[in-house]
């Protein structure tokens, strides 16, 4: 009996120090002078521009990776082709990469001295130090999530229903739309939620490729760092709270999907 309370206390203290206290502290710091300073900190032109850039990035990166995720998961579970294992391993690879390394790799391709960078700059479409670079960096780091959620779901689903539909004369697109997508919808949404969380929260890769110019190429996470370095702590905490609230919504969405029994 004593051991039970000892363990409970141990776990409680550990979580309090590592998790709870820091989370409570951000909210407390942002709101300790009331809603006024919080509101004025997140309604400066730089803050609004940062939030806008984060939203634009999410609006491109999430759909792009969702479509890729569906295609890749279908290929991995429904087809045999040469290099299938390599294909799967490459999709997983961004999880093993430091975000800074991702940023560097993109710089070496799209930067001023990179493989394709000079050509893009010459044709008036610079990638690095502008929005396309930021979007590209977040796409790389959030690439695996949809595929990783869908592969087990598709394996479980099997192909019988699709075969039945095909026998009855349904076209392949029709089958995907009417049979496959409805069957995998919870797994798909779960993958999209994870992707969005990662896209909104990405810092390292974006820090390398963005140039970090306030009001121009600054996402919310870069804005937090920038405010902190400028000793504007209220600004940093306020922007952090906005990001923390987004992650709370993300976790809530994940929980609701969990309860629907997808995992």
């Amino acid at each position, binding site marked *: 009996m004593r051991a039970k309370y000892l363990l*409970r206390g*141990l*776990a409680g203290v*550990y979580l309090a120090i*590592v*998790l709870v206290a820091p989370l409570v*502290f*951000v909210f407390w710091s942002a709101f300790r002078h009331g809603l006024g300073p919080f509101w004025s900190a997140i309604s400066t032109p730089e803050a609004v521009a940062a939030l806008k850039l984060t939203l634009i990035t999410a609006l491109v990166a999430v759909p792009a990776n969702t479509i*890729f995720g569906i*295609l890749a998961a*279908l290929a991995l*579970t*429904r*087809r*045999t082709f040469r290099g*299938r294992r390599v*294909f799967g391993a*490459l*999709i*997983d690879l961004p999880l*093993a*990469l*430091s*975000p*800074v*390394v*991702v940023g*560097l*790799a993109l*710089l*070496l*391709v799209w930067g001023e*001295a990179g493989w394709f960078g000079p050509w893009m700059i010459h044709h008036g479409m610079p990638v690095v130090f502008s929005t396309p670079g930021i979007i590209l960096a977040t*796409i*790389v780091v959030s*690439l695996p999530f949809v595929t*990783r959620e869908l592969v087990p779901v598709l394996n479980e689903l099997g*192909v019988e229903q699709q*075969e039945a*539909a*095909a026998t009855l004369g349904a076209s*392949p697109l029709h089958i995907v739309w009417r049979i496959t997508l409805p069957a995998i919808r919870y797994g798909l949404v779960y993958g999209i939620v994870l992707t969005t*969380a990662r896209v*909104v*929260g990405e*810092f*390292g890769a974006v820090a*390398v490729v963005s140039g970090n110019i306030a009001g121009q190429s600054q996402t*919310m*996470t870069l804005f*937090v760092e920038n405010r902190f370095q400028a000793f504007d702590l209220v600004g940093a*905490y306020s922007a*952090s709270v906005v*990001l923390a609230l987004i*992650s*709370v919504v*993300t*976790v809530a969405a*994940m*929980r609701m999907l969990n309860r629907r029994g997808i995992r």
Partner: protein
Amino acid sequence: MVTRALDAPPPSRGRQRARPGGAGASIGLGIAVAYLSLIVLIPLAALAWSAIGGGWSAFWTAVSSPEAVAALRLTFEVSAAAVAINAVMGTVVAWVLVRDSFRGRWAVDVLLDLPFALPTIVAGLTLLSLYGVDGPFGVNIAYTRIGIVMALIFVTLPFSVRAVQPVLAALDRDMEDAAATLGAGPFTVFRKVILPNLVPAVLSGIGLSFSRAIGEFGAVVLIAGNLPFKTETASVYIFGQIENDNSAAAAAASLVLLLASLVLLVVFGLIESRVTRHAR
């Protein structure tokens, strides 16, 4: 998780032939391969080329510079410390979540998802402000290795807990009852019956956490500051080299980091599967 999820067995040949929609699916596969090449393969090739394109001696000079060696060494030390602490404490937390029952247990369970979703820079900022110079507790972890370990503990905690939790929940308690009936005390039951069953899960958590920890940047950068030889981790060192336009040195250290991460995942995956086979 990382090493196994996409490793599903391929569909059998018979099913393959009966599968509908060959041409459309091929176009889908083609798009996916092209996208993956552009997003992952080409940048990685550029990275490898930048690291070793100048020859092995240039690569070796870059990674054996005192600052690079110090940064890589520090990274492995703080990661190992954070992962070791979480391997123990994460198992304790998982135990309490599965075997204990108290009001608000679901809230603790939900809370453990937050480090996954919280932006790493926010995690670093909050840890720094709470346990930093002006924090309410009068401790100062800013620019210390303890601070870095703490940041890594924060970001890898869910990996440790979530690796053990389902295995613990699925454990057959009849074995423990049988051992207790035969006179084993609670500690003996834990050591001889429960722990051997948890080892593969703990190892898998260690592999994932380690791989994540050595690459971590956002949570670490504010706490670590930028003191070469003292608190400069590999990712912070790489970032500094990029800012100094020394991309060859950055690429060389990146390659080491990438290979280390892959080796960790493979090694812990192998140990895990071997232990699992022995246990059965």
